C-alpha cells in the first residue's frame, strides 16, 4: 500500500517535485483520495486474479457487481448523511420496514406500482422523521437514528408477526434478479444512481451546500444556507435510498421477513468510510463510496473463492476500515503546506 505521497518528504511542494510524484502532489485532495483507493482496488483485483482462477470469470465479476450494487445503493444515501457529519444507524431497519410494507401491499393488491411507491415512500418518510428529530429536537444523529432503529424494528415485528411474505410477480422481481444484455438490473441501477449521486453532490447547488454544512454548519447558516432543511434533505435521501434498496432486496430474495436488512447497516457505513468520507463531515464523495463498496464486496468474494473460513470476515472488514482511514490521515497530513 505504498503510495507516492507516503514516501514523499514532508514540505516538498508540487512545483519542484518531479515526474509521477509531482503529478500526484499536484492532484487536488479529493481526486488523490479517490485515486489511491482505485489503486488499492486495482491491486486487490490483481491479487485475487492471481490467487484464484475463478475470480476473473464473467460470471464472478457480474456476481461481485450485483452484490456490490445493493451495498452501494444503501451506502450512497448514508454518504450524504456522513458528509454533513451525521450518522444514520436506522437504514437497515428502514430497509426491513419498507420491504415488509411493499411486500404486504403487493400481495394484497397485486399492484407493483403501488408497492414500489409504498416502499420508496415509507423509506422517505422514515428519513424525514430522522431529519426532524435531529433538526427540530436537536438530538444527536447517533441517538436519534438508534432510537428510530428500535422503533422501526418493533413496528415491523409487530406487523409481520414472524411471518414471511413471498412470491412476487416476475415483472417486479426483474428489478432484483433480472438481466439485460447479460448484466443484472441492480448493476444498471447502481450505475444510474452513481451518476445521479455524483451529479447531485458535485453539480447541484444543494450538493455544494451539503458539503458546506458538513464542513462548518454555523458558517453555512450565516451564509444563508437553510441548514435545517438541507439536513432533513440528506436524511430523507438516505431514507429513500433505503426504500429503494428494500425493493431490490425484496425482488432479489423474492420474500420479506422482519429481520431482512438488519445486518446491512454497519457494512453500509463501513463502505462509506472505506470510500474516504470523513465522519467529521465536509470531506468525501459518492464515487469514493462506490469504490468502498467494491473493495468490501471483493474482499468477501475473494475470501469465499479462496475458501477462507467466514469466521475471519469480520476481522478482515475491520482491518480494512481502520487501514483506509489511517492512510487517508497520512495523505491529508502530508498535504498541509
Amino acid at each position, binding site marked *: 500500500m505504498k503510495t507516492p505521497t507516503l514516501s514523499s518528504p514532508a514540505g516538498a511542494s508540487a512545483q519542484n517535485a518531479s515526474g509521477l510524484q509531482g503529478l500526484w502532489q499536484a492532484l487536488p485532495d479529493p481526486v488523490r483520495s479517490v485515486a489511491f483507493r482505485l489503486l488499492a482496488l486495482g491491486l486487490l483485483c490483481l491479487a485475487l486474479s492471481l490467487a484464484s482462477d475463478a475470480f476473473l470469470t464473467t460470471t464472478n465479476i457480474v456476481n461481485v457487481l450485483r452484490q456490490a450494487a445493493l451495498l452501494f445503493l444503501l451506502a450512497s444515501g448514508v454518504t450524504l448523511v456522513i458528509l454533513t457529519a451525521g450518522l444514520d444507524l436506522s437504514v437497515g431497519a428502514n430497509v426491513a420496514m419498507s420491504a415488509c410494507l411493499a411486500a404486504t401491499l403487493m400481495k394484497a393488491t397485486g399492484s407493483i406500482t403501488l408497492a414500489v411507491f409504498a416502499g420508496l415512500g415509507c423509506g422517505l418518510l422514515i428519513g424525514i422523521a430522522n431529519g426532524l*428529530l435531529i433538526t427540530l*429536537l*436537536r*438530538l*444527536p444523529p*447517533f*441517538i*436519534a437514528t*438508534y*432510537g*428510530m*432503529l*428500535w*422503533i*422501526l*424494528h*418493533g*413496528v415491523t*415485528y*409487530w*406487523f409481520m408477526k414472524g411471518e414471511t411474505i413471498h412470491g412476487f410477480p416476475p415483472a417486479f422481481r426483474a428489478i432484483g434478479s433480472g438481466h439485460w444484455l447479460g448484466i443484472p438490473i441492480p448493476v444498471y441501477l447502481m450505475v444510474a444512481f452513481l451518476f445521479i449521486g455524483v451529479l447531485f453532490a458535485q453539480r447541484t447547488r444543494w450538493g455544494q451546500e451539503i458539503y458546506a454544512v458538513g464542513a462548518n454548519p454555523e458558517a453555512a447558516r450565516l451564509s444563508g444556507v437553510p441548514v435545517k432543511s438541507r439536513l432533513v434533505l440528506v436524511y430523507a435521501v438516505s431514507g429513500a435510498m433505503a426504500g429503494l434498496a428494500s425493493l431490490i432486496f425484496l425482488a432479489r430474495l423474492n420474500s420479506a421477513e422482519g429481520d431482512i436488512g438488519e445486518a446491512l447497516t*454497519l457494512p453500509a*457505513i*463501513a463502505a462509506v*468510510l472505506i470510500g474516504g468520507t*470523513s*465522519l*467529521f463531515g465536509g470531506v468525501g464523495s459518492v464515487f469514493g463510496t462506490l469504490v468502498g463498496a467494491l473493495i468490501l464486496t471483493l474482499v468477501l468474494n475473494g475470501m469465499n473463492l479462496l475458501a477462507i*473460513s467466514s*469466521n*475471519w*470476515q*469480520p*476481522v*478482515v*472488514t*475491520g*482491518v480494512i*476500515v*481502520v487501514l483506509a*482511514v*489511517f492512510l487517508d*490521515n497520512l495523505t491529508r497530513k502530508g498535504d498541509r503546506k
Partner: protein
Amino acid sequence: MHEMTVRAEPVAGVGKLIARLKHAGSASGALMMLIVLCAVFAFSTENFLDGANLVNVAVQSTILLLLALPMTLIIMTEGLDLSMGAVLTLANVVLATVAVNTGGVSLALLAALGVGLAFGLVNGTLVSRLGIPPFVATLGTLGAAQGLALVVTDGQSVVGIPASVQMFYSGAFLGVPAPIWIAGIAYAAFHGVLYHTRFGANVFALGGNREALTLAGVRTRLYLVAVYVIGGLMAGLAALLLTARISSGHPTAALGMEFDAIAAVAVGGTSFEKGKGWLLGTLIGVLAVGVLRNGLNLMGVTSAVQVSAIGLLVILALMIDAFRGKQS
C-alpha cells in the same frame, strides 16, 4: 429500594444523594422517565414493587452497568467504543474456555482481563497515536473481536463452566447478590475516580479542552489510552458476570451490547460533546432500560412493542433534555 441505595451508599450519604438528584433532576429526562416508568409499572402490575423483583431488575442491570460506566468516560472524551460488546463476547468465550480447562476462576478471569486490556490498548493507540476517529477505530476492532470469538470457538458454545465461576452471578454475600456487590463497587470506584482524582479531572478535560490539558503539562495521549484500557478491562470484568450468568461461552453472546450501553449513557444525560458527563445519570439510564424491559415483561406486553418502547425511551429522554435545555 433497599438494594438500590446500597450501590450509592459508599460514595455519598443518602441525603447528599437526594440533594444531588433534586439538583440534577431538573435537567434529567432519564430521571423523569425512570420515575414515570416505576409509577406506571407499580400501578399496572402486581409484582413490580416486590422486593424480589427489584433485586431482579438490579441484578439484570449489572452487566450493562459495567459497560456503561467506562462508556461514560469514553464518551466524555468525545470518543466512542463500538467494540465493547464484541470484546465482552470474546472475553466471555476465552474466560469460559480457560475456566473449563483449568476448573478455576482466577486464571480465567486474568485471561478475560487480558483480552480486554489488549483491545483497550489497541483502541487507545489507534485513537490517540494514529489519530483514527474513535468510531472508525472501534468499528474495526469490533470486527476483529467478533471474528476472533468465532475463530476461537468455531461457532460452538463452550459449556461445563465450574461452579466457582457461576458463584459470581448466583451467589450472595450478606444477603446481597454478588453481581450487585460487583456493580456497586464498580460504580463507587468510578465515582471516586471521576470526581475525586486527578485522573477524573483529566477525563473532563480530554473532552472539554484537550489543549488546556496539554498546556497543563499532562500527557494527554497516555490518559486517552488509559480511558480505552479501562473500557477493555471493564468488558473483561463484565465477561465474568456474563459467563457466570449464562454458564457458558457463546460467540455471539453480547454482540450489539455496546449500543445498549451508549444509549444508556446518552439517556443518562452525558453529551457527545465538550466532556459533559454525569455518572449518576448513567446509572439512572441503565436502570431505566432495565425497569422498562422488566415492567413490560411483567405486563406480558408482546415483544414487538418492547422493541419499539426501548427506541421511544431513548428518544423521549433526550427530547426532554433538549426541551429543558432550550428553556433554561
